[in-house]
């Protein structure tokens, strides 16, 4: 079975999903359990915007990737070295 780049993408999506779950639980925690104020909420929104920018930027940069490419092609070629040691 050939392992493709898509595996990397799935792993990344899983990580983002975990982070989003953390963020949602944390915001609920912030709203119901802690005594934060307007400044605290503002900073949370600021961090969420940063989060969205990082994910959005990554999405844009990855837009034109061919995900069926074999993952092994990410490894540097050693053919040059083989020739060197001949």
């Amino acid at each position, binding site marked *: 079975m050939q392992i493709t*780049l898509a595996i*990397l*993408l799935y*792993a*990344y999506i899983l*990580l*983002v999903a975990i*982070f989003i779950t*953390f963020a949602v*639980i*944390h915001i609920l*925690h912030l709203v119901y*359990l*802690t*005594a*934060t*104020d307007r400044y*605290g909420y503002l*900073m949370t929104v600021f*961090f969420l915007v*940063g*989060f969205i920018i*990082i*994910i959005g*930027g*990554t999405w844009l*940069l*990855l837009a034109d*990737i*061919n*995900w069926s*490419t*074999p*993952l*092994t*092609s*990410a490894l*540097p070629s050693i053919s040059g070295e083989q020739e060197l040691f001949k």
Partner: protein
Amino acid sequence: MHIAKIIKQKKGEHVIMMLRRHPFALIPAFLLFLLINVFAISAYFFVAKYYPNMIASDAGRATTIILLSTLLLSTWIQFYGQFIDYYLDIWVVTDTRIINVEQHGLFGRTVAETDLYKIQDVESDIKGFIPTTFSYGYVHIQSAGEHSKFLFEQVPYPHLVRKKIIQLVQVDRKKHAAEAMAAGV
């Protein structure tokens, strides 16, 4: 900050001090966050300029972008955790008790309190160049209660806080002694 959300004030109880960590306490975390990200982004541009072959293929580019994005997300959430830890740590001193609200990371939270008349020892310290320059440090409080040790971390003017707490403890002790005398104990 809504004080009513943190503590249920007793009748006739007055809030004397509400303390937070000094803003300078957050600077090391911010600098570390900045350093890691600047280094990672610079490394990406360095590779793109001097070793373009490494990110020329789809696989190389996708791997680099995903790794960089994962690093950015991790440091961003780590810095947010540090900010929350800084921002939600709060110490309230009223004329009858001390309340210690401590946040540990994103999801841990401890709330403890002790009556002023139970306090046995108060100690303050400022250690290091930056804390001395900006006057922030620790106040250690030892009480006879179940949660016997309280620590005010990186609060501004810890020596003044200690003096004020000692003053309040003396007043509260006198009040309790007078009440005990009146009750005939």
